[in-house]
């Protein structure tokens, strides 16, 4: 089902003409209003007027998450603060999060695109949407909420947590659509089983899952356990939030990226050059309609491929493959972004802790787990049990406070964490996601 049939099925030549026009407009705009872009374009020796085709995009410099951090909080905003009506920030980062601002028109666009995404997943007026994405600085909750309302569906803003109550409400309110992270959906299924609630007796028809990587195998498990069609959605706060791309219910094969607003490229993360069509690489997105914080060639660090094959659903927008990894070391643990360097910074901050550590990520009972192993050297060691246990508790607490992720700290003997050529392996991810 279409929400905006004209734009969703725009023939490629017309779509590309629109993209170029919008790209040229946004380039002029950021060059004039954001000092960062003026400086970076000047360094690259390119002016907005030099971009005469979509292929010229390759000549523009990239924008990275670090650029956003350096510009903290508002340095990359292209609209005056009087025009910003909403501020979100990326979840779970120490020190400086990445901050994004939306003008009223940006919110309208996001709402429309989220409504478009929900419609593509088969959601319609009359549906009852159980929105278990977190509400707050995280874009998930509010993004899905506004889109659901725009579509004319009934939205239950339940947010995350209190799983027993979630199940009761889902059952009593007759929810037909579930929106949450894929791992939380399986956690719910388990909790429902314990409560004696059978998903086959619920009215759920569609689940829209995102904010963390998942696999085809997991889709099969979710569809079986929750008795619904599981749809993959993609988004990131830097670009907009949820609703950047979504699978259509007709094909469930690749996520349509809304190309009238986002210009996707796939690059080799090492060289920065375009890969051959259809090949895997890092997804780079340029926002071509955003006003608050337009991003030019933003490196998402997500690994995927891009397909322009026609889709049975009739949409002409390219499809990105299910995300198959990251080109950096970022971990997504229960929907929270975690960089090993953040944990290292916390460990250094704890008096005496030499940052010789290992992160072990796993998935138990459908929930991600994080174990932080820390080697106990002489400065940390005590002959008293309570002192060492206190140290482990403190590590757990500081990581929870700073990153918002629950972990268990395990103290290990020195030199038990493998070192290779001077640089230790910092992460073991045992989750079988791809």
């Amino acid at each position, binding site marked *: 089902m279409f929400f905006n049939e004209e734009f969703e099925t725009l023939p490629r030549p017309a779509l590309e003409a629109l993209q170029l026009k919008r790209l040229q407009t946004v380039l002029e705009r950021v060059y004039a209003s954001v000092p960062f872009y003026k400086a970076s374009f000047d360094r690259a020796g390119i002016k907005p007027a030099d971009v005469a085709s979509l292929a010229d995009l390759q000549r523009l410099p990239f924008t990275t998450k670090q650029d956003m951090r350096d510009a903290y909080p508002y340095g990359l905003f292209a609209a005056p603060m009087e025009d910003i009506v909403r501020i979100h920030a990326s979840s779970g980062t120490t020190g400086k999060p990445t901050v994004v601002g939306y003008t009223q028109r940006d919110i309208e666009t996001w709402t429309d695109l989220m409504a478009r995404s929900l419609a593509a997943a088969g959601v319609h007026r009359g549906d009852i949407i159980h929105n278990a994405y977190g509400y707050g600085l995280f874009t998930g909750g509010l993004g899905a909420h506004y889109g659901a309302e725009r579509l004319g569906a009934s939205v239950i803003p339940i947010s995350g947590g209190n799983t027993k109550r979630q199940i009761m409400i889902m059952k009593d309110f007759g929810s037909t659509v579930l929106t949450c992270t894929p791992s939380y959906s399986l956690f719910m299924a388990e909790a429902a089983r314990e409560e004696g609630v059978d998903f086959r007796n619920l009215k759920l028809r569609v689940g829209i899952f995102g904010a963390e990587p998942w696999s085809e195998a997991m889709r099969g498990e979710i569809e079986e356990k929750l008795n619904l069609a599981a749809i993959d959605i993609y988004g990131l706060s830097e670009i907009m939030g949820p609703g950047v791309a979504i699978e259509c219910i007709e094909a469930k094969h690749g996520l349509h990226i809304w190309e009238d607003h986002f210009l996707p490229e796939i690059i080799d993360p090492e060289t920065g050059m375009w890969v051959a069509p259809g090949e895997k690489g890092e997804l780079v997105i340029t926002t071509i309609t955003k006003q608050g914080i337009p991003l030019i060639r933003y490196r998402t660090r997500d690994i995927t491929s891009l397909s322009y094959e026609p889709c049975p659903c009739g949409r002409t927008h390219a499809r990105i493959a299910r995300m198959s990894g990251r080109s950096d070391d970022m971990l997504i643990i229960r929907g929270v972004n975690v960089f090993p360097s953040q944990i290292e910074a916390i460990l250094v901050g704890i008096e005496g802790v030499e940052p010789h550590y290992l992160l072990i990520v796993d998935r138990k009972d459908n929930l991600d787990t994080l174990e932080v192993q820390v080697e106990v050297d*002489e400065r940390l060691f005590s*002959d*008293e*049990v309570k002192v060492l246990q206190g140290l482990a508790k403190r590590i757990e607490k500081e990581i929870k406070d700073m990153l918002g992720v629950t972990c268990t700290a*395990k*103290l*290990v*003997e*020195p030199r038990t964490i493998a070192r290779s050529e001077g640089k230790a392996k910092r992460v073991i991810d045992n989750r079988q996601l791809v």
Partner: protein
Amino acid sequence: MKVEQISVFIENKSGRLAEVTRLLGDAGVNIRALSLADTSDFGILRLIVNDREKAKTVLKENGFTVSKTEVVAVEVPDRPGGLSQILQTLDSNSINVEYMYAFVERCGENAVIIFRFDETDKAIQALQDKGFTVLAGERLYSM
């Protein structure tokens, strides 16, 4: 009047304790007393040995985290109530016992208990004032 104890961090996995005792045995270090405090994840092995420097060196060389701690060895009359009198003395002086364990050898007619106090000097003074015998380290290592 203090005794030097060696403490070793041991991960809770099989063979680690055996490794410590093997290393000490091979180095000719004799263990005079020991206690093991354990949790689900790790243990702390506390040792009184005849040759502290050698023990420390060999364990460190083999990657163990080792520290030295000052503890107190007290002679305890080997009869009912013997230990109780000592603990009452400590309690009336508001001294906390972090942990304690028994020494293997007897000292004449008396048993020997190793104590770790929160205030070591104050504890020694209080015990001696009450007439208890606090053993010097040198005597203990060679017992």
